[in-house]
């Protein structure tokens, strides 16, 4: 069964409340968003004339690939095997973890080094490997920070975005048991030293995948730090784990995606390193892994293919631009979403993969402002899919909602049925309008009656109730027409 590791999205409301109260967190998030968005805007400005047509192309390539997913995966497999890559398939998280564990056991591995990978977070791989007695070290600086803090990443590109320099400094001193300087550069160098030793002792290196190339059976992984190069150069075995949707048909497609993902994600023209893997070490190479494995993970993705609209979710290239622009993410950060995939993309991916009952609040945790759709480099209609999921939860979701959503629907469903009947009758509309205006007028003066009207007290918890002007437009219009007669 498809799952997302450590999911707690059913606590969204209370987790978001906690996040809102955390002033330090909100400051860090606002600063991070400002910085990443201005970098993104600058990077895209340079190619502004081409950007929209690049988005169209990227979206069309992804659409085509998903419509031909079976053939493309088989083609990838055939070519990868020719290249000497051992290809494995895993239907769900459990099977994927078991496969990786078996490969590690066969390699008699004791120590595993990892470079940043969201799909391994999704399947909870570290947890399984550690349970089998392996040492697992995350080598991306941000991932290492959240690993030693005992947390999950709060952003799909910048895992430690919720931390401040001060909190990271405290964490480093506590973990390493020594004094270290407080500037970012010194702290980074300390991490380099500590992690270099972990690289040198690792038997197995595990990476994610950005693009599987069907026609060549090779795959590309992006990074900036060099940790992934080390992960794939020093250990004897390289295991790559990939969602089945990460495929592109042609090697030449990489050009387009590479020119987009850096700009969109981090505001870089391209990421510092882009590693294309075409198989284990070959003569005359004197280093590099002797064995290369590819684990292709479904974990619920095939369920999304059945609807043309929702299928778009699988076009995602994990650039993080939607998180960086999202005004909700800006206030609450990633952890409140309770899934390793937070923010707008997470709010459509998580409930579809983990099941509505695990994350039925997430599709509603959006003001539907549409900023995510505007920045998405592959043009995923995130607000449209949110609306689609809302409909499923509201109208066909009985028994598939978490407690909070169930309560909400108990209030909302009958209210909207009444609303619908009122709005279909001008007479009822007029009368209820007068009633609502009177109530609003009273509420703008006193909170005495709030407790009888939950939405009103919810509104007032952060805002005052604006006073209605008095009278309706239609009444004024009628008076005016009568006067003109």
């Amino acid at each position, binding site marked *: 069964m498809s799952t997302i590791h450590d999911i707690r999205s059913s606590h969204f409301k209370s987790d978001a409340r906690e996040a809102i109260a955390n002033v330090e967190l909100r400051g860090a998030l606002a600063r991070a968003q400002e910085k990443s968005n201005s970098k993104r805007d600058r990077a895209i400005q340079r190619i502004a004339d081409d950007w929209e047509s690049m988005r169209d192309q990227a979206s069309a390539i992804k659409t085509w690939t998903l*419509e031909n997913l079976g053939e493309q995966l088989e083609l990838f497999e055939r070519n990868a095997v020719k290249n000497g890559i051992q290809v494995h398939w895993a239907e769900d998280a459990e099977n994927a973890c078991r496969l990786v564990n078996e490969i590690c056991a066969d390699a008699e591995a004791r120590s595993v080094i990892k470079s940043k990978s969201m799909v391994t977070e999704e399947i909870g791989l570290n947890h399984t490997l550690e349970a089998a007695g392996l040492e697992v070290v995350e080598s991306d600086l941000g991932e290492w920070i959240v690993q030693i803090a005992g947390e999950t990443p709060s952003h799909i590109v910048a895992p430690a975005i919720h931390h401040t320099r001060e909190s990271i400094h405290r964490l480093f001193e506590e973990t390493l048991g020594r004094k270290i300087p407080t500037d970012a550069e010194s702290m980074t160098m300390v991490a380099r030293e500590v992690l270099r030793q972990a690289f040198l002792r690792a038997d197995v290196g595990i990476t994610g995948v950005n693009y599987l190339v069907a026609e*060549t059976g090779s795959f590309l992984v992006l990074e900036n730090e*060099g940790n992934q190069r080390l992960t794939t150069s020093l250990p004897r075995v390289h295991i790559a784990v990939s969602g089945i949707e990460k495929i592109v048909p042609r090697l030449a497609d990489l050009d387009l995606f590479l020119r987009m993902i850096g700009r969109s994600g981090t505001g870089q023209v391209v990421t*510092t390193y882009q*590693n294309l893997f075409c198989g284990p070490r070959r003569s005359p190479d004197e280093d590099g892994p002797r064995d290369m494995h590819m684990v292709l993970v479904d974990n619920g993705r095939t369920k999304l293919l059945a609807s043309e609209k929702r299928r778009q979710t699988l076009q995602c290239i994990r650039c993080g631009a939607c998180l960086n622009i999202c005004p909700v993410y800006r206030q609450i950060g990633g952890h409140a979403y309770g899934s390793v995939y937070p923010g707008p993309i997470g709010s459509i991916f998580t409930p579809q993969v983990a099941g509505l009952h695990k994350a039925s609040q997430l599709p509603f945790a959006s003001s539907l402002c549409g900023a995510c759709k505007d920045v998405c480099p592959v043009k995923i209609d995130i607000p449209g899919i949110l609306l689609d999921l809302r409909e499923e939860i509201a109208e066909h979701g009985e028994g598939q909602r978490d407690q909070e959503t169930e309560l909400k629907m108990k209030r909302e469903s009958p209210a909207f049925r009444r609303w619908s009947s009122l709005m279909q009758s001008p007479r009822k509309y007029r009368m209820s309008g007068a009633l609502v205006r009177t109530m609003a007028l009273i509420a703008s003066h006193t909170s005495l009656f709030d407790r009888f009207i939950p939405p009103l007290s919810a509104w007032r918890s952060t805002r005052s109730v604006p006073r209605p002007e008095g009278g309706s437009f239609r009444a004024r219009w009628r008076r005016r027409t009568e006067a003109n007669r």
Partner: protein
Amino acid sequence: MSDRENILNAVRKALESTGDAKSACTLPELSRPRLEGTQETLIGRFIEEVEAVSGRVHRLANIDSAARQLETLIRAGKTESLAVSRDPIARAISSRVLGRHVVVDPEDNQDAIAEADMGLTGVRLAIAEHGTLMLAPEDDHGRLAALLPPHHVAVLAVSQLVGTLAEAIEHLASDSQPATITFVSGPSRTADIEQTLVIGIHGPALLDILLIEDTQEEDHPS
């Protein structure tokens, strides 16, 4: 049934259920961007882009001047040990500074390379539009010399420079694919602590590119 069959069946079933939508969609032809201009324009763009990501490019006439530039870098960096890959031009250059510095060969174990201060390697190609080096470790007989030492010096002939990433990928598609290709645009970097840019985390912190006009070894020095 195996996971493989289950997945492929699930894919087929899900896609069949949406019916004829498939026929409407075709795989778009790619625009293959090119850089207009002379070789000098390419070089100018390459240098500009490398510098924009904190790398350095040294324009050099021939192998001798490249060797002199390497000496300068070695002196400036107080380099004590140099790991040299098996790339022939890198070898030719390092042979001119040999004897005065410790040379670690990639044949040696990885600990020795890990302790080197500088790694000298060749490159397969370079891309002007992004200031990118395309490393194919099999040309160098290994990947560690360009990776473990904190200072990477790459040797690049002017003739190896192409305009765009699309062109580089075309070259790659026409050759037999090497086990690994690494595209390098600048030194290693991170911004994981409060988005503060720090250069040099796991990979090299310094990247110097010796861009050589003429890599022929006609008059071999004594």
